[in-house]
């Protein structure tokens, strides 16, 4: 778990947002995806904290941040909230690092709040409409369906997490407890489902052109064994964004931060240092 002494919170859009501020150096904003929260970076932090200042957030509705469902949990709004956070913290320039839908949020930030972005790193990210959410919130949508089940049943959740790992034996009870922690309360479950329901790939379709013309360095990391997001996302991003780098980790699942933290940290460090 991230050290509590680095834990802070701030009120943004009338809701409490929890974040961690760790290390010294150029600032890195680490944004998690769905089913996780700040803890997903815990194994990556030790490799980066000596060279960078890490800003690790719990997105609204996730981790310890506010669970109100009267706020839109769309990627666009998350991007807006994070931009407000950076402004409040007086951080003018930041390297954006996003995982899963966090990658989508970072893409939007890089486009909509380009002034703050030094670089963009997306890890097992969503992009385009190559991800299994549809504008109509139909419960038939497999991923939403699975997430709904997972919010209610520890076994179903464990199944999702396990499939997301390359090294499946690493799913200890302790790690599972981190994943399950927000699902223990009704408010946590509601916020999680609200988060899932708010996902809309139109948010990313809108910025397709802008993404392809990004002026900042872009790094795309792909866990080769990610069963949830298509390989095509990473490949198409890499092809479309001129000068972007693509790193494929053969031993990485969807939750690649747990599988190969050192590798990811090295890639990020090398990418930023150049």
């Amino acid at each position: 778990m991230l050290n509590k002494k680095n834990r802070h919170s701030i009120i943004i859009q009338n809701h409490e947002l929890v974040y961690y501020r760790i290390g010294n150096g150029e600032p890195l904003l680490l944004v998690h995806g769905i089913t996780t929260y700040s803890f997903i970076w815990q194994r990556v932090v030790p490799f980066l904290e000596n060279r960078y200042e890490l800003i690790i957030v719990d997105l609204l509705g996730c981790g310890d941040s506010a669970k109100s469902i009267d706020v839109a949990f769309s990627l666009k709004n998350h991007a807006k909230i994070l931009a407000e956070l950076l402004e409040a913290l007086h951080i003018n320039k930041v390297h954006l690092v996003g995982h899963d839908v966090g990658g989508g949020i970072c893409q939007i930030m890089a486009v909509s709040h380009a002034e703050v972005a030094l670089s963009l790193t997306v890890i097992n990210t969503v992009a385009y409409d190559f991800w299994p959410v549809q504008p109509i919130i139909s419960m038939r949508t497999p991923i939403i369906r699975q997430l709904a089940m997972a919010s209610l049943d520890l076994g179903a959740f464990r199944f999702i997490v396990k499939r997301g790992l390359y090294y499946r034996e690493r799913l200890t009870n302790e790690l599972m407890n981190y994943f399950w922690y927000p699902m223990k309360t009704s408010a946590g479950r509601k916020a999680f489902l609200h988060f899932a329901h708010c996902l809309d790939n139109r948010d990313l379709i809108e910025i397709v052109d802008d993404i392809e013309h990004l002026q900042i360095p872009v790094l795309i990391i792909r866990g080769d064994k990610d069963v949830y997001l298509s390989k095509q996302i990473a490949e198409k991003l890499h092809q479309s964004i001129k000068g972007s780098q693509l790193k494929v980790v053969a031993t990485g699942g969807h939750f690649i931060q747990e599988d190969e933290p050192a590798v990811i940290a090295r890639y990020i460090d090398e990418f930023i240092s150049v």
Partner: protein
Amino acid sequence: MAADKEILRRLELRIKELEEENNSLSDQVEEMLLINLINESFDEITDEGRLLTAVLEKISVLKDIPYCACFEFSETSYNCLAQYCSFYTNEPCLSTVSISGELLKELNTQSIFRTNLIQNPGLVTFDSKSAFHPGEMLAITFQTRALNHGVFIFVCDGKPSGPLKNDLLPFYQIIRIVTDKWDRISLMKELRQLNKELEKRVEERTNLFKQSEEKYRQLFDMATDAIFLWEIDNKGKVLGCKEMNDAVLKMTGYNKDDLQSLNLFSLLADTYTPKERKVFEKDFARQSGILEASFNTRIGLIPLELHFRRIKLDNKQMVLAIARDVSERQAYEKQIIEAKNKAVESEKLKSAFLANMSHEIRTPMNAIIGFSELLYQDESMPGEVKLYADIIFKNSLHLLNLINDIVDYSKIEAEQVTICNEAINVNELISELSINMISILHQLSKSHIDVLTHTPLIDSEAVIINDKTRLRQVFTNLINNAIKFTQQGFIEIGYQYNNQDYLEFYVRDSGIGIATENQKKVFERFVQVRDAKTSSAGGTGLGLAICSNLVERMNGQLCLESSIGEGSTFWFKLPYNKTNES
């Protein structure tokens, strides 16, 4: 071209069919999953509130129904038991839902009610602050052990294609599962309550029992009588003592280990014959009774009175026996019997005494009255007058002695005699007594009897501390008896000193003697040994009894050695301390 179009159209149709089939299969799988999930997650729930909240949340999430609630209702009122609203952040939901009288009426008449709230907006109204726009509504009533009228209400949002299908079987299934579980919970609650009450009652009873047991245990242990619980077999044979109180140890010295496998009757005193033992055992085999027998114990042979009663305990034949040491009682009984015999004897003696006294008193009185009368008539000769006066005088003396004796003995009986200690020179006393004796013998014309004295201590050492008057009285009495029953020979008075702490005084004569069988009796009151030789001796029969009592009071004991025809020696020891002499 047209053919191609036709093929394409068919293919599209086929795809649509397959999609529908796929959707239908998905629905079935989802419903199975839902039911399974609901069923599984109930295991650890023990409270109907939590049960309802959990199930409502699952239905809402998995069937995408924003508002799910459970109410209890009557014809005019309703009460929300649990609700889940996906459109509010916090639980319990802040939303307040109003149910119209019209809907209540419907619920009271039909078990399932389905409508669209867009067309009938007044049936259920939501808090105006809510952003929720109700659409289709489904209400299914139910009943459990604890709730007569319950209803589950599901409200979808106003989207055109709501999740409520025509097939309501999954809802029924879920509701059945919930009501079953609810019943189980209420049953468990009732059971727990009953169990609690039972435990409480058991505890109360146990406490009462403990108190009672403690009380009886205290009684059992505090009892001064020994209490045993003997186990016996079907034939009445004693197998051993299974329980006993502290008094057993105190009374017999035996402990539980000693008596555990012992037959009670093996402890019977050795003096009992086999026949007597059999009788005891036979008595003991009765339902209840009392035995009195002597038993061998560690402390010795003790007579016990055994109260016993047969009881059944744990399917075993037991004999509860309470034993009391009756040695004291027996001794007391013996004393009473002796005292009674003595009283009877005393009564007899008193009658004899009275008879005797009337004779003894009347004889001198007759003489006194008769001769006084003769003197009064003044017709006697001068010589006769002297003779008569002498007779009157002697008879009066005799009478006086008699009365003195009676008075003395009365005093002794009434314990009014006090001993006044003083220094007595016994040599002087014996000398005085011997002189008196010579005088009396002379008067009685018995001067031929020799008077002897024995005083071995020198005068300065012959001093004892005692009551002189009483000692003299004892001697005088013994001497008078000696004179009375001695016709010839000697009478000796004196004492012996054997370098011990007492002097042994005695009066010995060579008189008629006393038969061995009468020797004890002579010290008793009103006893006179009478036979042909002594019939003329006279006396009250009190003399020796008085002497014996007085000697006892002077810390001695009067004893007698005698044989018929050879004379008698009365002797007694009195304390003597040589250093006290001065």
